[in-house]
């Protein structure tokens, strides 16, 4: 009888652990919501501090979701679900989902987009990317965020601008050549979020065009600017 080699597929183990953590965390977030609501009801002023707790838990949750999505994309278990979506609605949903944190940190948001702007993309994936980018911006911006969408050269360009200190030069250089996957994840030069954004953008193709991301520090608010290009 042959001796069976125990075959450990580490990626699969991680994925299943991540799946489990994500479920627990989302229960935790839901319970936390209930606690916050209750504190507000009985007028506990410290309730607002729980917002930060909520924010960190949500960041972890976003990271886990991204990890899992990357795993599924890698294993070809995920196919994009491309639909025709209103950008205005996308922006509104983003603002609503982050309202608590925006209020807590006193950040104002303005959005700029034509009313009848529609585009083809995977709504879940793209809102995931924008949500986590926005979440990161909370850390760096001072008081303002701007969401801008426009059509540029056959691409939909969605930008998130802030009035913080801007992106470090090495990150900007890394994304400047958008034809290749450019963020070096192994050197630890960047976070998971940008890596994820780049992959999701790259999965969006139309005829011979592919999506990409770009970072710069030359936006109207004076801080960093993240742009997502979708063909």
């Amino acid at each position: 009888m042959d001796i069976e080699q125990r075959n450990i597929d580490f990626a699969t183990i991680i994925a299943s652990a991540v799946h489990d953590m994500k479920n627990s965390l989302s229960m935790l977030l839901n319970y936390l919501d209930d606690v916050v609501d209750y504190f507000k009801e009985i007028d506990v002023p410290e309730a607002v501090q729980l917002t930060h707790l909520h924010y960190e838990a949500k960041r972890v949750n976003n990271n886990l979701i991204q990890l899992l999505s990357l795993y599924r994309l890698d294993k070809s278990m995920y196919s994009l679900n491309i639909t025709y979506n209103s950008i205005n609605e996308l922006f509104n949903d983003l603002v609503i989902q982050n309202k608590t944190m925006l209020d807590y940190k006193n950040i104002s948001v303005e959005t700029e987009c034509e009313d009848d702007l529609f585009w083809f993309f995977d709504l879940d994936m793209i809102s995931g990317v924008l949500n986590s980018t926005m979440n990161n911006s909370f850390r760096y911006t001072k008081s303002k965020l701007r969401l801008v969408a426009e059509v540029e050269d056959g691409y939909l360009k969605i930008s998130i601008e802030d009035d913080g200190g801007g992106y470090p030069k090495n990150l900007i250089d890394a994304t400047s050549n958008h034809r290749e996957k450019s963020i070096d994840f192994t050197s630890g030069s960047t976070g998971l979020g940008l890596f994820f954004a780049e992959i999701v953008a790259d999965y969006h193709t139309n005829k011979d065009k592919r999506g990409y991301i770009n970072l710069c520090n030359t936006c109207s608010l004076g801080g960093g600017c993240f742009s997502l290009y979708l063909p």
Partner: protein
Amino acid sequence: MPLKLILEGKRCLLVDDFSEFRYSVKKMLQSLGASDVDDTGDGDEAIDKIALKSYDLILCDYNLGENKRDGQQILEEAKHKEILKYSAIFIMITAENTMRMVMGAMEYKPDDYLTKPFTKEALLARLEKIMEKKNDFATIDKALARKDYHSALKMCNDKIQSKPKNLYELLKLKAELSITVGDYPEAESIYNQIVNIRRLPWALLGLGKALFLSTKHMEAKEIFLEIIDENRSFVEAYDWLAKVLEALGDSKEAQRMLMRALELSPKAILRQKALADLAYKNNDLATAENSYKQAVDLGKNSCFKSAKDYTGLAQVMLDKKTPEKALKVLQDSKTIFTNDRESTLQATLMQGLAHKELGNEADLKSSIEEANSLFSGMKGTVNSVASLDIAGSFFKLGEADKANQIMQDVIRNNHDNEKVLKKAQEVFTSADMQTEGERMIAATKREIIKVNNDGVMLVKNGKLAEAIDFFSKAASGLPENKIINANAAQAMLMYMQKFGKTDKHVNQVQRYLDQIRKVDPTYKKYQELVAVYKKLTEA
């Protein structure tokens, strides 16, 4: 921040086998204003609840535990029994976001899928979108609920004129409806229009379907291959590719495609049946036996259970020379489908064959007697394919008179359908009656051609009223004969072109067209008639 109370006054049902998850989602629903929320962890109980109360929203987990009824089966049962009102929202909760693709081929689809876990904000956003869509489509859905496809098409057209934001959904529906009413060129052109803007998988699938139904098989094949190349989990594309391959004569490869699709969605009962039939045709008895077994097992929790799965399985067992096993399956079938005469007859005939194989003379005799008495009580209600099976069994049991009588009827209904005639000839040949068969087919063909020509002559001589009468009588005796039904429809259309349309005649034409579509949706003359019908009803 307080959420919008969009569920105020709505009756909600939550189905999930984890009580903690139910607790947490129930809280979410309440925070959206719902005060009437029922919940259960069991699929059977869910169906009982749906039957008793008319819910506005059902959130249902797909996976409700091993060997239990799953979310898709609950949805199917509820829609099949028509206990779910058309305005109700059904959301399937799944653990994976690929579910949409894997579940694609299902007859009944939920309004949306939601991937676990989700926040109440995400639930709210999703519900708002679905409600808005339901609202936009309310009048169309109403027409669809009463199967009034032409009115639904007209409403689609009106809405599309105003270039709304859900334009693509309307175009999608319009194309699907065009296929339903047999207007394949229209469907093809809509899908092409979309595909030229963006090669969306659903539009490519629709295009492939339209091409297949217009018998452009090679083009259709290319399209389905392209979809699978891009989306390996898009199971519906495999189903259609299998159909194309079978039409092109490559039934081995077609079987392979269905097997790949079933790897992705092993619980799809209709696909298991299709595979079983195809494998049997390919003489792959092992696969056929396994798939029929799966279909029988899946059928226990499904509204798609059918006696054919049992008789199919029994047939394989007879072929494998295991008649005892076949007898057991046939007994099960008769117990489950007691009130279904046709199925009981088929099962009884096969019991006779099993007894014959085993040499049980007494049992064989009583099976034949039972079959005879069943048959005498049910003439004219069995479709051609089933009839051929029944006739074949009668032949094998030595009841040639009965068998010939059934064969005659089948041939009359299919005198121009080469596929059925070929099968009929096979039945004769395997009963050692090749020449008798050839003779009967030729004579019956002549008989029906004469009937048809007599009717056509009336039309040519301008006796339209008489022609209508003549063809209606002929069509009612030959419900599966597509030429007779087509000519009946044509005579009536010509009559209306001359004397004006009436609701009664329009409906009658619609019935003839439906009848032809059931028999052969790819029939060329059918297309032409649909075009005339469309012009006449839109005028």
